[in-house]
């Protein structure tokens, strides 16, 4: 019992510690693909450190929401990290605290408050970005739900640990059309929720075109560090859900001894790194979509997820 709690804490630490590294690797790879040098992969750590040591400037027009949100945004991905398989493929101590719908709820709460805080500032760019984020959010909701429903229906459970066993039961299940379609749908979802191209340009500084970045515009000092770190953790958590729950449980520790679990850490890092490569390929080969084309993009994701549901429910496929 204590072992599982310890592993759970290890999971959380994993996500906490490696999220900025992941963001750094992603941006470095993107720059390298574009034949530039790019910042060091540890730059995010230095940024967060620097921000923690700066003063905060808070507008007088804001309410408690503005001050409260960074903590929320920071803490929610940590909750989700306790629920999903990050290092082990058997359920840990807090795994039954909430299921995937609960995890989705946590992330949604964080996003909701971030949007509210952006409106709270009174800055013209904040609400604009917030409304766009909400639009992407509500278009992505049906996709989330259908993916969760399909996956839960097939696995007869909504706990992530149990779901991931289903897809590798046999080679046929791994390669089944339902699985492929689900992967595609969820990938498009990650691109939308994480604010990556083709939905949003994470490296852009042009406020009029910002969707996801705008929620962090007004923050400074410690709050900015928390928002930044929280955003990176959210993305790493989504990537872990995608890779460990939906794709395959390769690299996850099977045994309960500490050695196995610690050995899982570099394996999961490697897996996540491969995913980063895929992301970089997608980001550098596509262009950012115009705003009203995002509904087509997410509509396509929705259709893909419903197709996954259809092909998994009908017998035989």
């Amino acid at each position, binding site marked *: 019992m204590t072992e599982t709690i310890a592993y759970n804490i290890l999971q959380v630490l994993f996500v906490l510690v490696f999220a900025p590294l992941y963001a750094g690797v992603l941006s470095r790879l993107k720059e390298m693909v574009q034949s530039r040098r790019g910042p060091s992969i540890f730059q995010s750590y230095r940024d967060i450190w620097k921000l923690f040591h700066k003063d905060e400037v808070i507008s007088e027009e804001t309410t408690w929401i503005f001050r409260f949100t960074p903590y929320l945004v920071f803490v929610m991905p940590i909750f989700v990290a306790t629920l999903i398989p990050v290092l082990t493929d058997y359920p840990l101590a807090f795994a039954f605290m909430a299921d995937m719908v609960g995890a989705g709820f946590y992330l949604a709460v964080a996003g909701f408050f971030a949007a509210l805080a952006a409106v709270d500032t009174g800055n013209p760019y904040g609400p604009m970005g917030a409304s766009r984020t909400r639009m992407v959010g509500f278009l992505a909701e049906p996709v989330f739900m259908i993916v969760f429903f399909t996956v839960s229906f097939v696995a007869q459970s909504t706990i992530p640990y149990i779901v991931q066993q289903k897809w590798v039961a046999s080679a*046929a299940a791994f390669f089944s059309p339902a699985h492929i379609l689900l992967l595609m749908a969820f990938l498009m979802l990650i691109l939308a929720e994480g604010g990556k191209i083709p939905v949003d340009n994470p490296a852009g500084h042009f406020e009029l075109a910002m969707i996801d970045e705008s929620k962090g515009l007004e923050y400074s000092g410690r709050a900015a560090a928390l928002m930044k770190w929280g955003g990176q953790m959210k993305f790493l958590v989504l990537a872990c859900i995608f890779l460990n729950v939906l794709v395959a449980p390769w690299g996850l520790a099977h045994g309960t001894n500490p050695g196995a679990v610690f050995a899982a850490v570099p394996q999961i890092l490697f897996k996540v790194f491969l995913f980063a490569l895929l992301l970089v390929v997608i980001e550098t080969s596509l262009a950012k979509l115009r705003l009203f084309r995002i509904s087509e993009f997410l509509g396509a994701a929705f259709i893909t997820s419903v197709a996954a549901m259809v092909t998994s429910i009908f*017998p035989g496929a």
Partner: protein
Amino acid sequence: MTGSVPQALNTLCAGLILIAAFAMVATRQVQGVVRFFVVQSLLLTASCFLLGYGRGSIHLWALGAITIACKVIAIPLVLRKVLPGDYYERREISQAVNIPASLLIALLLTITAEFLAGPLVSAANDPVIRVNLPIGLAGVLIGVWSLIARREAIPQLIGILAMENGAFLAGIAIASELPLIAELAVAIDVVLIAVVAGLLTRTIRETLGTTEAAALRALKEEPASWR
């Protein structure tokens, strides 16, 4: 389901073929449609080879080779030669049905195809047929839809060829011992279709100045007072 590797990979190919069919409905560019068609044909060839390997049928290997020669190589080449040069830069700016709704209809057609193929699939007891038949039928129906929804001439033609892909996907599962002459003739026929349609498109472009099929509306039974 017995999961031998060729069968599993065949299932993967079938799933990707379905995705390619959706992509053909969703894309706006003419060039995109042709590319997705080539991708779909390649996947069909992969399915042929996999089934040929799995069933030990030289026949299917030959069919795969024919498909590559005709659909992956010959048809894009023919289209490039026959169509006017700037045709590939065209995009459909507006459609009769917008893209998300169009995709939704494609999805409904997939569900219809699963229903239609249901009794047959349970009659056969072959896992390959269980995958190929519904997806082949869905490919045909989605091709019909993309034919209706498209406004440009060549995407309409590609819709027809995508329907052939769907028919073939089902065919290699259910009718794999078809005489080779028939397969060859069908393949040649497909190339001929591309040639004829391409020639027509070029002539239409030269005469009417546009290739939008919706612009062809001279012959209708309207009362004279409405014109």
